[in-house]
Structures are given as structure tokens and as C-alpha cells.
């Protein structure tokens, strides 16, 4: 177990190094940070002086080395726009994004398993055909379009849910702003969560269905029938447990991917999270903030993947968590 963690931390450091290198190397192609930083009135000569002072004219490797030295101390530089440490700005927005992803994950968990199992057990029912058809549509519609449609239907036409923002938030210990404790905050969370889950949910339904159909063909399921067990026990214990093993692996990675989708969802719903902040940072050529965002997201990815491997090891008795190549 300890060996597993040491190996994982080693892997994580390599991954983070590669991410930082990529993030750092794209910054030159984003535009001139000085255009946003200083006004029109500043002359080109003054701009050059500023560039020299900020070290923007140094060779790439020199800049990167300087960045790396500070980054290991937790300093990812100051945001040009906010004039504050970039990491601090990002982490302030983290709770909003995490709660949005949690909302979407909850929706996916609540609906994908029962629907996927139903479709696997009743492959020929009209409801299954309907679900499979709808899921294809769900996968094909881009998130921003789903989001706009949701706003149009539920906010504008029906007026059930608010169309933008996070609503009322309360502060938890450690400065975590949560929208989960107020009715208003929860109402604001519903539409963005649905929009964010709109691609992953159909994907999960299809994944669970196909995995379960394969499991149902296995000899040990036939043996379970031969033992005279009830259908409920065969489907929801014998088959489902085997179905969920591969789903956990794929699913964990997908939940990481969902953080990327939050950029679109947060933009449409004006959700004050990291994704929204990232788009603003790109518009402002706020390179330290962009790099900080990429590194934080990379870190979240590494953490979720480690958690998934842990859970997988707990559920699958044939897997033991070791330091060796597994």
C-alpha cells in the first residue's frame, strides 16, 4: 500500500512536470501580455523596458527554470490582471467548479446505473430502444447547446430555475464558499449540473449496458441461474458487481475529463468557477493564471485517477495494490 503511494507520487511528479512544460511553452503563442497590462499611452520603448524587467525577453529555458524554481515552493507567479498570486485566484474559484462537477457526477451515478442495467436486462423492450436512441442524441449535442436549450426551457419559458450565477453561498471552515447549504444555491446548481452531465450520462448508460450484457453471457451467471437464485440477486449482485469493475476505471477518467467540460458550462451559465476564470484569463493573455489553471487541473486529474485505482483495488478482489508494475 505504501509502495503503491510512493510509486503514484513519483508518477504524479512526472505528469506535473510535463504539464508545466507544455503549459509554459504555449504562453508565447497566446499574444502580448503587455497589451492588456498597460494602457495605450505607453510607448514602445517603455514597453521594452517593462518586458526586460519582467524577464519576458529572456531565453525560454531561463524563463522556465525561473518558473520551476518558484513553482516547487508553491508560487506560480502573480496574475497580471488580479495583481495577486495566480494560485490564490484559482483556488478561490475551485469550490464552485468542484461543486458543479459533484452535482453532475451525482446525476450520472443516480441515473446511469439503473437505466444501464434496465437496458441490459431488457434488450428488446421499446423503452430500451428509446433510451439507446436518446443517448445517441445526448452524446451528439454539444454541451453549450444543451445548456442554452435548458436555459430557454426551464428559466425563460417555465421560470423554474435561475439562469445564471451561483446564487447564495455560505462560507465553510477554511474559506470554502459552498452553494450546497442554501435552497437558492441548490436551485442555481441544478441546470448547470444537468448540462454538464448531458454528454457523460448517455456515455455511461451505454457503457454500463454493454458491459452488463457481456457479463450476463458469462458462465458464472449461467451457474447462478442453475443455483436457483432469484433474478434480483443474479442481476444486482452477481452481474452488477462484475459490470462495475471496468466502469469504475473508465468512469474515473471521464469524471476528470468533466472538469474540462466545465469551461463551456460555466461560460454559458456565468458560473463563477475555474473554467469561467480560465476563459477570461485567455482573453486577457494573463499567462501566469493560464499556467496555474492547467497545473491545478492536472493535479486534480492525477488525484482522481489515484482515487479510482484505490477504489478499484477495494472492489476487485483479484487486484492487490502494490508498487510493482500492475
Amino acid at each position: 500500500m505504501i509502495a503503491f503511494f510512493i510509486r503514484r507520487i513519483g508518477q504524479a511528479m512526472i505528469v506535473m512536470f510535463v504539464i508545466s512544460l507544455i503549459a509554459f511553452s504555449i504562453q508565447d503563442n497566446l499574444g502580448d501580455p503587455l497589451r492588456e497590462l498597460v494602457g495605450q499611452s505607453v510607448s514602445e520603448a517603455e514597453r521594452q523596458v517593462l518586458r526586460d524587467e519582467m524577464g519576458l525577453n529572456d531565453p525560454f529555458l531561463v524563463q522556465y527554470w525561473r518558473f520551476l524554481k518558484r513553482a516547487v515552493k508553491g508560487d506560480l507567479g502573480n496574475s497580471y490582471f488580479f495583481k495577486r498570486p495566480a494560485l490564490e485566484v484559482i483556488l478561490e474559484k475551485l469550490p464552485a467548479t468542484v461543486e458543479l462537477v459533484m452535482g453532475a457526477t451525482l446525476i450520472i451515478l443516480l441515473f446511469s446505473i439503473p437505466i444501464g442495467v434496465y437496458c441490459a436486462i431488457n434488450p428488446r423492450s421499446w423503452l430500451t430502444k428509446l433510451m439507446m436512441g436518446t443517448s445517441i442524441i445526448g452524446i451528439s449535442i454539444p454541451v453549450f447547446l444543451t445548456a442554452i436549450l435548458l436555459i430557454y426551457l426551464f428559466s425563460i419559458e417555465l421560470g423554474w430555475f435561475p439562469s445564471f450565477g451561483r446564487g447564495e453561498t455560505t462560507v465553510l471552515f477554511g474559506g470554502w464558499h459552498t452553494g450546497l447549504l442554501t435552497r437558492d444555491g441548490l436551485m442555481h446548481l441544478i441546470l448547470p449540473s444537468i448540462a454538464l452531465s448531458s454528454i457523460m450520462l448517455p456515455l455511461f448508460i451505454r457503457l454500463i449496458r454493454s458491459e452488463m450484457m457481456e457479463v450476463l453471457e458469462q458462465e458464472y451467471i449461467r451457474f447462478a441461474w442453475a443455483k436457483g437464485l432469484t433474478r434480483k440477486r443474479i442481476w444486482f449482485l452477481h452481474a452488477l458487481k462484475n459490470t462495475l469493475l471496468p466502469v469504475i476505471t473508465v468512469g474515473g477518467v471521464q469524471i476528470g475529463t468533466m472538469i474540462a467540460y466545465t469551461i463551456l458550462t460555466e461560460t454559458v451559465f456565468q458560473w463563477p468557477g475555474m473554467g469561467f476564470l480560465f476563459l477570461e484569463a485567455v482573453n486577457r493573455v494573463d499567462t501566469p493564471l493560464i499556467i496555474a489553471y492547467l497545473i491545478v487541473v492536472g493535479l486534480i486529474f492525477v488525484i482522481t485517477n489515484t482515487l479510482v485505482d484505490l477504489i478499484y483495488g477495494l472492489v476487485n478482489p483479484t487486484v492487490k495494490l502494490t508498487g510493482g508494475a500492475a
Partner: protein
Amino acid sequence: MPILEIKNLEVRFPMRGGELIAIRDISFSIDRGERLGIVGESGAGKSVAAFAILRLIGRPGYISGGQILFEGNDLARLSPEQLRQFRGNQITMIFQDPMMTLNPVLTIGTQMIECLQTHRGMGRKQARKVAVEKLRRVAIPSPEARIDQYPHELSGGMRQRVVIAIALLTDPAIIIADEPTTALDVTIQAEIMELLLALCETHQVALILITHDLGVVSEITQRAIVMYAGRIVEEGPTRDIIERARHPYTHGLIDALPERTHPGQRLNQIPGSMPSLVDIPPGCAFHPRCEHVTDLCQTRVPGYTLLDHARVACHWVAAQEQS
């Protein structure tokens, strides 16, 4: 008084462009405590026949005719819920490959206790005690520890012992064993077969043994059925079948045994191969490979010729008996 009686059983598989008849006109019975072998080549329909008894044929196959009478109940016509009460209770099964039969993510104990909870309404503790007892019965060392292990922690032979223990849990009247040793090492095969035989004898359980191994049939069973292309071609006391088989196909099978040839000599074999079920030859299905073939064999399906304690579906045998 037979405990299980199968009458004119027929199983079909719908296929593109027509239905495939996997087994037809299968009738046999088995008495309490009797051991019956069903032999034949792969594809003869012996496994289909075995699985059909508990209506466990894989989709899209279905029972298209006949009766499966167990203590007066026609298993072919029971509702799924009624049928479930017989499965794994009075009639249990042992599958071919112990590597595939046990659920990989559940402990041995879970997979045993659930049977007793389902069929006997036992509590966990009592069921566990019975399960440990049965594991001891199939000679699993330290069953109290093994019961909490997962299948992958056990060897193939041990797993098949566990499967046999599961089959014995509810003290069934019949065990159907579908090639229970085919997937095992040769050295373990004999051990498992001996164990099965001993358990059936001490518990007075009837055994339907599906196998392609005539040697196993002669050691274990009292009566044997030979199947060819979905039909029973010969049935009789095992010793008679081995020592004086009547049907030319059974003859061929026995001649093909390695013991029947001298060392260094080529093994005997039946010329040709079994027809696919899609195009079974008209008349007797065996006629293209038979050395006694006549015109009659090519046109008419032979009926059964009844002999003492035996029956044979062969025109040639029928002609011999008449003369």
C-alpha cells in the same frame, strides 16, 4: 419408479432462414440413486440435453416439445418462479470449467451461503456451518479459512471441488454434471471423478454425467446413452455398451479408444465427421459413415429396436434381430 423422466424432448434454435433442431425425440429416465452417462462427440447435443432439463439453454434456443417430469412436475411447463424452486435445490448442476463457473468477485462462502438462504431459508450462521461441512466433505483442506477466500485464490481442482460442494449443499435428488473434468489436469481428473462417485454413492444422489470419455462412463455409470447428431442412437447398461455395443457408431467409438490398439499401431477412427446440425443427412444421420449402410438407411430414420434392458436406433441391428 424413475425420479426423472424425459419424454420426446426437442430443442430448437431459431436461425436466419429456418430453425435448427439441436436435439430431437430425446426420451430417457433415471431412477433414484442411479448413475447415467450421456456420451457422444462434440456437437452431438449432449450438453444441450443436459441444460434443457433445467431450462438453461442459452438464447435463442428453446424447448419446442416434450416433457421433463420430475416427481410429477413437468419442468418444461412450470412458470419461471416455480422452476427456480427446483433449480439448485432438488436438481443441481456441475459445469465444465471451474475457472469460469464461480463468480470472481464473490467469496466462496457468499456463493455457497446464498443457495441455502434461497432454498432452505437458513440464517447466515447456520448456512455457513453447513457450507463448511460440505467443503470438508469434498476434501478441501482447512475449510473454515477457505470459505472466506475468492475463487482466484484456489487451484482449478480445488474450484471444481467447491462447485461439487455447492451442488451438494441442498442434498439434491439429482446432480447433472456437464463434462466435470474436461478442463482439469489429467492427474486431477481421476481424483475429482472418484470423489463425485463416492459422494453420489454415500448420499444416494442420482447422477447424469455428460462426457465424451467412454473410460469415465464405464467407471462411473450404471447405464449409458449414446447420442449422435441430436438423437439417442443407443441406450443400455454401461457394461453391455462397452463390451458388446450394437450400434455401428458406438462400435466405432469404442474401437477408437487407445486401449483397443497395440502400442505403435495407428489409432482406429470412424471415417468422416459428424454432420453439422444444419444439414443432417436424410434417413439415419450416421449412414454416410456407416460400413453397414443399405438403401433403407439413406431414406428412413430408424426407429428403436428394443432388446433386453436396451434399445438401438439402427436398421442393420433391426434386421439382425428379426432373422
